[in-house]
């Protein structure tokens, strides 16, 4: 017999002897009745004592929860059966009747019955609804130790110290107590003539079978949940298995092993196992079919008295001398491994399956591991090796075994694996493509083995190592109870050690840079070099973890899925109704395995952690994106932002005006604060705003705040200090109106207005003061008139000596005109991003200032490429190219010796595209192709592109020392190995050109950097000229890009030409006006065309060409766009309409359709002769035929050409 490595204790309590146990069917609760007369209610998941019930007198032996109602029943040595309500925490009533100790009490699963067994040799059934005794079963002639209802049928089993087990039929009792129905004749007969009445004439419950076989007293008996089986435990130390049919019952077998009295036993609810406990201090587990011992667990000191099983989940509880333990028989964590988009896992049937995260489908079973370890022990771990498509499975059986198995190519069913390598070891993991490590805890050794299972190296791990994990390539992590050690296998060297205790699992991030060390209550995040990044504690047990692609750790506890950022910020993502083991996080889905090893997908809302991650990484674009697309408003996120010191960002979330005001003050955003104060308009807000604005030196806002509060004194002082004399005098007038003399006096002093002061003193009859004021300021006349008015003379008054009056200083600087230079409000880049969106329109308007040379920066790219319908002449993709394609492929590999051909030569042979020839280094043929396709003649501008393609075609792999590197050829056909189909990679694909280069060109246009723009667009043309695409659709896209580039080059060249002209001469001015008009012709993006129109309109208007200006304004208005722009257009339109005449006649027919010659920048009206460029399609007057195209600078105008070829069907 082996001791069990698998019995996992989940909870233990300390108390006096536990005699009875009951699981709550739904909640994580357990009732324990103690020898000390107490009944305890525990939450075994949290490990807390919820309640105690102490009304029994003496030991309580029987206890049971009602399956649905909030009540339980107990029976004790005080002969009493008590029924309790655990919500009201009171005993509802007591059932009296037994004449000796009550041993067990049980509820019926559906009827309102309680079954009790007692030392008075009776078994009784009680109705708890009417609280009456409905049946007494006699027959045992010693203590009845246990009596249980059958889970479905009308049967009772009882065990007694009279050495017998009895099965009772209680169908009669049920009939008697069920609702009255029409009674059939037979029933009436049966009632009238009780046939099988026992010796007391009792027909309600009759003995069906008496099972004799134990030769001591029987302590316990249990029914099998589904089969007609019974198990009993007795003082003869035996566990006996019985079977019954309708007519008879017999002993099947005996389980021998207990060496003391067996106290209790039961059937495993789901597996073919029997569990028993005894006074020999053991819990034993037996195979139901073979009746052999499967495992046993021994306590040192405590005798076991009782065992109970949870009805649903895999949990048991056993009561012993000093308390209760709750335990599981086996681990429920399914062994699994994730590789890229696949999960490999082992089901409860021990089948290996895979699950595809992309398609969300389970594969059929691939392998059966039935023979691995013992049948009752599930495999513990699974390690996957993608290079070999092999798995390494460990099982804890027999001190640990591992097996190395190759997975079959296709999942065809649960086949037994062939070619299995196995060995002894506690854990085994792959550490490299062809190596794995096996750890044996017993002799504390790690063996590195190759795929043939031969040991290549042995390592002595640190003392006390309990487990090993993959530690990055070529490294191992040793787990000891107090630390984790990173070990380099190759160098046999310890690289790092981290003190972290009790680590159970290690989860690596997808990029292999971080690992999460999980212990029971802690998550520690470390780097790949084992430096601690963060750590967090959970009170609830941590079960599993998986990494998001963005580097966020998601972990599951017993009841939550939570996240943790690298900096340790964490939070709850969702709750769980059952325990799951996370395996992967992809977007909004969390993949996990549940306890039955079924893959499940949980939907989560990653917004919160993505947002926090973006915040930490200062990725404001992403934050903006999240704010826009998600409803991320809530007090928690706001307080999070505030706490983390980002009030300005919090501001963006808040709608509530009061909160906005507070946040705005906090981050010093006065504009928002003013807005909110206006909205709320409460005096105390204005006060605070005023104080804040004063601190900023923003006195205009201060003024507004004081005005709002009607705070005249402060307002006056503010005007004084800013030197605003005008407003001061207005304040004086206001004071006069209000009749507030103090204020008036104050203002007068501030202004140095002596007359007003005297006048005021006179008004309030303070003549002495008025006189004194006048006198002291040398206003003698005034002083005398006051004296006169008072009827006094100068002799009659005595004056103290008057000194020179104080002059009010005059303001030197007109401070009031503007705010004090305020430090630019600290706009975070986040705000800038936000404002950028709003501000862009303004920037575009700025770009149209008539001297565009002076503009500022224009916000970054925004436009997307819009289709422009423009037919490109000379493009005829249908034409076959006349290139010397090798009709027959020469197989050079036939030769036995000598050098072969380089792959580059194959490229030129395999493809008719010019770009592929360039990559192959065959420049001559590439030029021939381009010449035929698009009439290319001037190759010099293409040189950078040629060399670029060529440079990108080869890599240099260092091999043996002393020799030049091996040259390999980079293919765009990555999957292809057929030498007739391989093709080179061409840098700058169409996507890059459309998304990067083209946007750069647009940006140059907006920023008015036209020289740069021309360069960029020409670069685009050259990039496309030598390129390959993968579909006909892309060919169309390439055509559109060529057309766009042509239009922009033309437009920019016209404008550049105009800027180079002087407008001093009449001819120069005329030509300038014409060119600015032509600038509006090329088909640009609407926003850019508006720029051209705006420039042309203003230029025409300034030179009094009102008719032209009017036509440009009309076109602008038709195009629509930003209101500011349109406003200007409208104004000019109004003014121009008054005299719609052109002062200078120019060659520009605003009503005709025409093209612009790209060489002379003059119109080509419809019908007049023209030639076009075979590549770009640019139009020219006929005299330019045969010259190099001004737009492409490569091709010859009007040359015969078959059309550019970028795509060969079936080639890619």
């Amino acid at each position, binding site marked *: 017999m082996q001791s069990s490595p698998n019995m996992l204790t989940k909870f233990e309590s300390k108390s006096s002897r536990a005699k009875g146990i009951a699981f709550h069917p739904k909640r994580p609760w357990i009732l324990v009745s103690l020898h000390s007369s107490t009944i305890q209610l525990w939450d075994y998941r949290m490990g807390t004592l919820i309640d105690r019930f102490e009304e029994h007198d003496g030991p309580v032996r029987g206890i049971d929860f009602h399956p649905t109602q909030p009540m339980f029943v107990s029976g004790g040595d005080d002969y009493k059966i008590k029924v309790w309500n655990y919500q009201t925490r009171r005993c509802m009533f007591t059932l009296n009747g037994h004449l000796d100790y009550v041993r067990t009490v049980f509820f019926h699963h559906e009827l309102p019955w309680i079954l009790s067994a007692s030392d008075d040799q009776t078994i009784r059934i009680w109705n708890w609804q009417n609280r009456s005794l409905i049946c007494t079963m006699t027959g045992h002639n010693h203590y009845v130790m246990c009596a249980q209802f059958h889970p479905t049928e009308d049967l009772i089993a009882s065990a007694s110290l009279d050495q017998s087990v009895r099965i009772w039929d209680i169908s009669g009792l049920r009939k008697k107590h069920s609702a009255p129905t029409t009674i059939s004749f037979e029933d009436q007969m049966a009632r009238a003539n009780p046939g099988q009445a026992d010796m007391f004439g009792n027909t309600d419950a009759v003995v069906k079978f008496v099972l004799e076989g134990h030769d001591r007293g029987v302590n316990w008996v249990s029914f099998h949940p589904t089969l007609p089986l019974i198990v009993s435990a007795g003082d003869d130390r035996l566990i006996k298995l019985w079977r019954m049919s309708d007519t008879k019952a017999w002993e099947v077998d005996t389980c021998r092993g207990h060496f003391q009295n067996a106290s209790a036993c039961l059937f495993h609810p789901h597996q073919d196992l029997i569990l028993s406990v005894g006074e020999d201090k053991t819990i034993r587990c037996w195979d139901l079919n073979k009746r052999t011992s499967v495992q046993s667990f021994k306590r040192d000191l405590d005798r076991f008295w009782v065992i109970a099983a949870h009805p649903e989940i895999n949990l048991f509880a056993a009561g012993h001398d000093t308390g209760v333990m709750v335990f599981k028989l086996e681990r429920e964590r399914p062994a699994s491994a994730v590789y890229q988009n696949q999960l490999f896992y082992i089901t409860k049937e021990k089948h290996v399956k895979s699950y595809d995260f992309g398609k969300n489908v389970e594969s059929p079973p691939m392998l059966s591991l039935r023979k691995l370890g013992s049948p009752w022990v599930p495999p513990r771990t699974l390690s996957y090796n993608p290079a070999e498509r092999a798995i390494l499975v460990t099982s804890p059986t027999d001190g640990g075994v591992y097996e190395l198995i190759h997975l079959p190519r296709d999942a065809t069913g649960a086949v037994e694996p062939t070619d299995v390598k196995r060995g002894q070891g506690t854990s085994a993991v792959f550490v490299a493509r062809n190596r794995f490590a096996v750890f044996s805890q017993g002799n504390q050794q790690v063996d590195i083995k190759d795929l043939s299972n031969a040991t290549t190296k042995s390592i002595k791990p640190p003392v006390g190592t309990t487990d090993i994990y993959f530690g990055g390539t070529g490294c191992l992590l040793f787990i000891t109870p107090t630390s984790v050690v990173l070990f380099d296998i190759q160098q046999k060297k310890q690289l790092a050690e981290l003190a972290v205790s009790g680590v159970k699992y290690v989860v690596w991030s997808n990029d292999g840079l971080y690992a999460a060390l999980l212990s029971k209550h802690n998550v520690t995040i470390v780097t790949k070099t084992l430096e601690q990044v963060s750590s967090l504690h959970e009170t609830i047990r941590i079960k599993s973890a998986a990494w998001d692609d963005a580097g966020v750790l998601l972990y599951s506890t017993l009841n939550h899925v939570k996240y943790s950022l690298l900096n340790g910020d964490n939070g709850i993502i969702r709750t769980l109704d059952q325990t799951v083991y996370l395996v992967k996080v992809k977007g909004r889905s969390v993949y996990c395995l549940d306890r039955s090893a079924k893959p499940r997908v949980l939907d989560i809302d990653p917004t919160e952690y993505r947002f926090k991650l973006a915040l930490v990484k200062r990725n404001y674009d992403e934050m903006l994106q999240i704010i826009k697309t998600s409803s991320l408003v809530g007090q928690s996120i706001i307080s999070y932002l505030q706490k983390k010191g980002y009030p300005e960002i919090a501001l963006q979330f808040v709608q509530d005006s009061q909160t906005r005001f507070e946040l705005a003050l906090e981050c010093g955003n006065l504009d928002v604060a003013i807005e909110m104060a206006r909205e709320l308009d409460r005096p105390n807000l204005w006060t605070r705003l005023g104080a804040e604005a004063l601190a900023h030196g923003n006195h205009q806002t201060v003024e507004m705040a004081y005005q709002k509060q009607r705070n005249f004194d402060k307002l006056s002082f503010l005007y004084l200090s800013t030197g605003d004399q005008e407003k001061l005098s207005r304040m004086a007038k206001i004071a006069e109106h209000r009749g507030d003399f103090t204020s008036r006096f104050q203002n007068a002093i501030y202004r140095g207005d002596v007359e007003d002061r005297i006048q005021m003193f006179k008004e309030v009859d303070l003549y002495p003061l008025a006189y004194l004021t006048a006198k002291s300021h040398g206003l003698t006349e005034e002083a005398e008139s006051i004296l006169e008015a008072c009827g006094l003379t100068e002799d009659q008054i005595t004056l103290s000596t008057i000194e020179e009056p104080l002059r009010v200083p005059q303001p030197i600087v007109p401070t009031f005109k503007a705010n004090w230079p305020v430090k630019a409000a600290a706009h975070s880049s986040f705000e800038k991003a936000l404002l950028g969106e709003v501000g862009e329109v303004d920037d575009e308007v700025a770009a149209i200032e008539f001297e565009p040379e002076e503009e500022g920066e224009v916000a970054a790219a925004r436009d997307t490429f819009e289709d422009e319908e423009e037919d490109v002449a000379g493009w005829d993709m249908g034409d076959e190219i006349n290139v010397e394609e090798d009709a027959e492929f020469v197989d050079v590999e036939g030769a036995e010796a000598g*050098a072969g051909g380089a792959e580059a030569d194959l490229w030129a042979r395999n493809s008719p595209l010019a770009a592929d020839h360039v990559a192959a280094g065959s420049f001559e043929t590439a030029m021939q192709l381009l010449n035929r396709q698009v009439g290319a003649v001037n190759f010099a501008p293409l*040189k950078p592109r040629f060399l670029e393609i060529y440079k990108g075609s080869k890599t240099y792999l260092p091999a043996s020392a002393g020799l030049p590197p091996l040259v*390999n050829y980079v293919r765009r056909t990555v999957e292809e190995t057929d030498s007739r189909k391989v093709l080179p*990679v061409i840098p700058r694909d169409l996507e890059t050109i459309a998304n990067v280069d083209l946007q750069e060109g647009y940006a140059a246009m907006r920023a008015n950097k036209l020289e740069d723009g021309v360069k960029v667009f020409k670069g685009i043309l050259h990039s496309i000229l030598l390129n390959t695409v993968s579909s006909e659709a892309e060919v169309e896209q390439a055509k559109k890009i060529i057309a766009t580039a042509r239009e922009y080059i033309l437009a920019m060249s016209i404008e550049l030409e105009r800027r180079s002209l002087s407008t001093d001469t009449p001819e120069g001015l005329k030509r300038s006006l014409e060119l600015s008009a032509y600038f509006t012709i090329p088909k640009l993006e609407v926003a850019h065309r508006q720029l051209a129109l705006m420039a042309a309109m203003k230029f025409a208007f300034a030179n009094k060409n009102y008719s032209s200006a009017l036509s440009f304004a009309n076109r602008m208005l038709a195009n629509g766009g930003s209101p500011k722009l349109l406003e200007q257009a409208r104004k000019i339109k109004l003014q121009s309409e008054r005299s719609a005449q052109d002062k200078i006649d120019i060659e520009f027919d605003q009503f005709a359709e025409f093209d612009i010659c790209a060489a002379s920048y003059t119109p080509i009206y419809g019908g007049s002769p023209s030639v076009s460029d075979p590549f770009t399609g640019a139009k020219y007057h006929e005299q330019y035929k045969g010259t190099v195209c001004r737009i492409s600078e490569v091709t010859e105008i009007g040359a015969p050409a078959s059309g550019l070829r970028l795509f060969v069907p079936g080639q890619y």
Partner: protein
Amino acid sequence: MDPFSAEGELINIHNAFHQGQYPAVIDFDPAALSPENQLPARILQLRAQIALGQSAAVLAELAGEDDSNPDLAAVKALAQQSAGDLESAHTLAQDLAENFPDNGTVQVLAGTVLQAQGHSEEALALLAKHQGSLEAVALIVQIHLHQNRSDLALKEVQAAKRWAQDSLLVNLAESWVGLRVGGEKYQAAFYVYEELASAPGTAAPLSIVGQAVAELHLGRLPEAEAALSTALEKYPDEAEVIANAIVLNVLAGKSAEELEGRLQQTHPSHPLLSDIQEKSDLFDSAAAKYAPRVLA
């Protein structure tokens, strides 16, 4: 027993050499080795010095040695080759090939010299005489690949795999072939190099470049960039790191001028530069054949 086999005492220095960890080879203390392994260890150290460009020091050291020792003479030939003294290297190598064709060191080193000077057939003939030397096998594979005979290279590797499946050199040689053959083999080669590059004990420019090259061939540019940029920081003067970084930048559509300048400075004779120069001239002469009918 083969002193380079997994249980031999030379395994570490041998692996370090072939992983390109030359400083580690030089720092290796041969004192602890048994007498018969002293010489092979010393030869590896000398070769590591040559690989690091210290051929002058090696020549100086060998000047005082007995010339009749074919092993050291072979090292000398290699040092001469590396120092640019092609003529004497060639003569010495041919000499050794004739007189000591069965000496393993001579096979490998003289073979290297012959191949480096373009005498592939002679080199192959000499190397074919090897008796289970993996170094010779690796060299043969490389020569075949150089001749674009991946079929023969593959045969050689597969033969070697039968008797030395797990050897580092066989793995490397298989990856060389894999990178030439392509398809699924790219990924296999990647695994080999990634394993070497990611373990702190085996990381060297050679392995990182190998990993990056495999990524490039797999079309995984961002990953290749990550590998190469860390390599550039660590080994700013490694020719192959710079050369492949140039290729990467071109493929990613970025400017490679700065790197080309750096390569020009540190390794003016790198094949990439000479190749580009040649192609640039080719372009000019080819482009000169075309002209527009009318000059503007």
